[in-house]
Structure formats: structure tokens, C-alpha cells
């Protein structure tokens, strides 16, 4: 077994490979000084196809793909993701790749907040107009990182059903292939709203949503403040923050095969975006958030004044599952035993924006 770990940073892409998930060969940078905010690994193909969102501060955004595990990259001549002229919008960046149940269907979530769909395996994308035309759109506001659609969750059972999440705006779901969308934030707190308006229909600053390994209706959500789960595909949410040292954070990751196993990286609060007490801790729940365990063996115990961004944590699909995260201080950590113990993959990289791992 060999693992490929792709690491997107503020200044380029690094690739790491390992046969034991403890010793890594790290190569890079590719796309130097470009912001690599999203990586996708399409495992439906005989050779996995890598996609990367590359944003050069001079020359703008693009999406590139590789069919040789990152040795070479290509892109179409014409922009692979481009807003239609009548929208008056221009692409500022791609934040997410997601794979639907139909072969060759790939979604991207982008900034400004919008969704695009590819039916050619992620080479070119079509605008999903139904979401753009939503009457709520004019009220979606930028979060601290921009105004973007950062999470796309195609239902593995039904290609017509997709959930998305945006900052701000919250969760929206479609059951008709993207033609119409419904705000889906019942029970999610908006601390930045005045008292009496803190459970709005939409407008929440959802940071990340993950889908349970076995039950797609079971979803887990890291909010700007609050951690939640849904048992009904996102229609209603209930808190699972009790047992965590803090309810603020960015990533939320589901185990690839074990139902009810999830991972988070709590930060003190919106105004203290550091791990509590400066201790680097991943938190794991094995019962859908009813209780949590701090995982720290091998991680820095003091002085870790860093953070983990919303897409900078992931798993691989091995058994036992590997868990990975990268920090804003440029360190990448891996666990080969579902989070019980950790070892460093790389250090002194630029801010890590995303990690994605696959068994190749």
C-alpha cells in the first residue's frame, strides 16, 4: 500500500508519499507562490485524477488536473471555471472539489459564492444557475476568508441531491439536481446576530460539514461557534459541542468507513483562534458527537499557537484509516492509527490551506 498526501499551501503544492504512513518522501513546491486552496483526488478512475485550485496573485485563478499523480499537470486553453457574462461576476478562487455518484461528475464550490458542475471528469465546469438565482444570494455576506461556497456534499445515493455550505449563508440543499435550493440551517446558532435573531433561516457562518461514512443523512457541522449533527440530511441540527474544550474551529472530518466516527480541531473562540492552552489536539468522537476524546500522542503539548483551516484535515481510505492535518504554521501531521498516535510529515512549509490523501 502506498499513500499520496497532497498538501496545498499559501505558496504552492507539496506532495508526500509513504508506504508505512510514518516515513514520507516530500516533494515540492509545485505552482510556487500560488495559493492552492483546494485539492481533489478522484478515486473513481483507474489512475486517480488530481485536481488543484491554483490562484496566482498576479495572474488569477485556474484549475489544473494531473493523471500521473502530480508528475505533470494540464488545463484547457479556455478557463475551466468561468462565470457567465450576464452575472457580472468574475472567478476569484476555487475552494472545493467534490465527487458525485455519477462517473465523471465533479463539483466545485467557488468565490464569489457559487457552484459549478463538471460532467467531463473535472476538466471543464458548467455554472449551476439555480443557486446563483436564489433570492437569498444578495444577503449572503463575506466571512473573514471571503464570500465563498466551501463545502459540496453530493448524496452518494441520488445524483439529484446535493448539500452545500457557504460563509456566510449557511447550508443549502437541492433535491432536483440544482434547479432549486432550500436553506437548511434549523438549529444552527449565529452568534454575530442581535439577540432574538440568532437562529435565522440562513446567514450562519458554517465552516465545514462532513457526511457520515455509512449513513448519508447523518451529517456533522463545525460552525463559527457551535458543533452540530443532523440525522435528516441537514434539515435539522442539534448541538454536539458538549465534551469539546471549545466549540469554535474550522475542519470537520468523517471517518472513511466507520459510522459515527468524526474528527475536529477546536480553537478557543472567535476572538482567540488558538488551540486551548496552546496544546495541539485533535478531538475524535466515536459515537456521532455524544462524547469526545482529545488525541495528543506525538503532537506538541505546549506553545502551539497555530490553527488548522477548514480543508486542512482529512483521512485516507485505508484500514485502519490514516488521519492528516496541516497547520497555519506550515507543519503537517499524520496518524496511521485513526488518530491514536501522530508523527510529523513536513515542517516549515507555508500556511497549509488543504490536505487530501489517497491510497494509490
Amino acid at each position, binding site marked *: 500500500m502506498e499513500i499520496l498526501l497532497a498538501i496545498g499551501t499559501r505558496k504552492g503544492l507539496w506532495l508526500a508519499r509513504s508506504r508505512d504512513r510514518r516515513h514520507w518522501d516530500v516533494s515540492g513546491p509545485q505552482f510556487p507562490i500560488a495559493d492552492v486552496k483546494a485539492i481533489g483526488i478522484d478515486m473513481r478512475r483507474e489512475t486517480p485524477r488530481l485536481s488543484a485550485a491554483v490562484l496566482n496573485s*498576479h*495572474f*488569477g485563478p485556474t484549475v489544473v488536473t494531473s493523471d500521473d499523480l502530480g508528475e505533470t499537470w494540464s488545463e484547457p486553453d479556455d478557463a475551466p471555471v468561468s462565470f457567465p457574462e450576464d452575472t457580472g*461576476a*468574475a472567478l476569484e478562487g476555487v475552494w472545493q472539489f467534490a465527487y458525485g455518484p455519477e462517473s465523471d461528475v465533479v463539483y466545485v464550490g467557488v468565490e464569489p459564492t457559487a457552484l459549478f458542475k463538471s460532467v467531463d471528469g473535472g476538466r471543464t465546469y458548467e455554472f449551476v444557475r439555480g443557486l446563483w438565482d436564489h433570492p437569498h444570494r444578495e444577503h449572503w455576506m463575506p466571512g473573514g476568508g471571503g464570500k465563498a461556497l466551501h463545502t459540496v456534499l453530493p448524496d452518494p445515493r441520488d445524483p439529484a441531491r446535493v448539500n452545500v455550505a457557504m460563509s456566510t449563508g449557511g447550508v443549502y440543499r437541492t433535491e432536483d439536481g440544482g434547479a432549486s435550493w432550500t436553506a437548511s440551517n434549523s438549529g444552527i446558532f449565529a452568534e454575530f446576530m442581535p439577540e432574538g435573531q440568532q437562529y435565522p433561516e440562513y446567514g450562519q457562518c458554517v465552516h465545514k460539514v462532513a457526511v457520515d461514512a455509512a449513513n448519508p443523512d447523518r451529517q456533522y457541522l463545525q460552525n463559527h461557534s457551535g458543533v452540530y449533527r443532523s440525522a435528516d440530511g441537514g434539515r435539522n441540527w442539534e448541538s454536539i459541542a458538549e465534551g469539546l474544550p471549545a466549540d469554535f474551529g474550522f475542519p470537520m472530518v468523517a471517518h472513511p468507513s466507520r459510522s459515527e466516527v468524526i474528527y475536529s480541531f477546536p480553537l478557543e473562540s472567535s476572538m482567540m483562534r488558538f488551540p486551548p492552552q496552546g496544546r495541539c489536539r485533535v478531538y475524535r468522537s466515536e459515537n456521532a458527537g455524544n462524547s469526545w476524546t482529545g488525541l495528543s500522542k506525538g503532537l506538541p503539548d505546549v506553545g502551539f499557537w497555530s490553527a488548522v483551516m477548514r480543508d486542512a484535515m482529512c483521512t485516507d481510505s485505508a484500514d485502519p484509516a490514516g488521519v492528516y492535518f496541516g497547520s497555519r504554521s506550515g507543519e503537517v501531521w499524520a496518524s496511521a492509527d485513526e488518530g491514536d498516535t501522530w508523527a510529523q510529515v513536513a515542517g516549515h512549509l507555508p500556511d497549509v490551506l488543504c490536505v487530501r490523501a489517497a491510497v494509490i
Partner: protein
Amino acid sequence: MLRGLAGGVSHVEVAAGTLGAALDALGERYPALERRLRDERGALRRYVNFYVDGEECRRLAGPATPLQPHTEVVIIPSVAGG
């Protein structure tokens, strides 16, 4: 970086009456190059400078800056990033 998107050449000749039209013509030949210089609305990318016979186009008429026969347009990344 840009030369790789123009077949390796560093100079391209086009027939155009304005800077915008010159970029349109460039896009016909090298679309992956042109989209590094302008977004899909046709707006010049903020951190790319276009010197028209030595004067940055934003001090002239931007994309509407007229070009004469033999006008030289030099495209240079400006200071950006961190």
C-alpha cells in the same frame, strides 16, 4: 511563466486599434495566456501592468488606450503577494 502559455515566444505581433483589442487578438491565439491578463469580464488583472510605449495603461485610457502602428505593449507583473 507567460511565455509557456504563448508557445515559448516572448513577442507577439497583433493588429489592433486599442489595448483591449490587442488583448482580444492575443486571446484568439493564446486563450490560456489572455485569461492570465484579464478576468472573464474583460477587466485587466490588478497586479499585471501593461506599458504602452513605456507608459502604464492605467495612466492612459486603460483598455481603451489607442495603439498606433508599431506601438509596443510590454506586459509585466507588478508587485504583489507576500
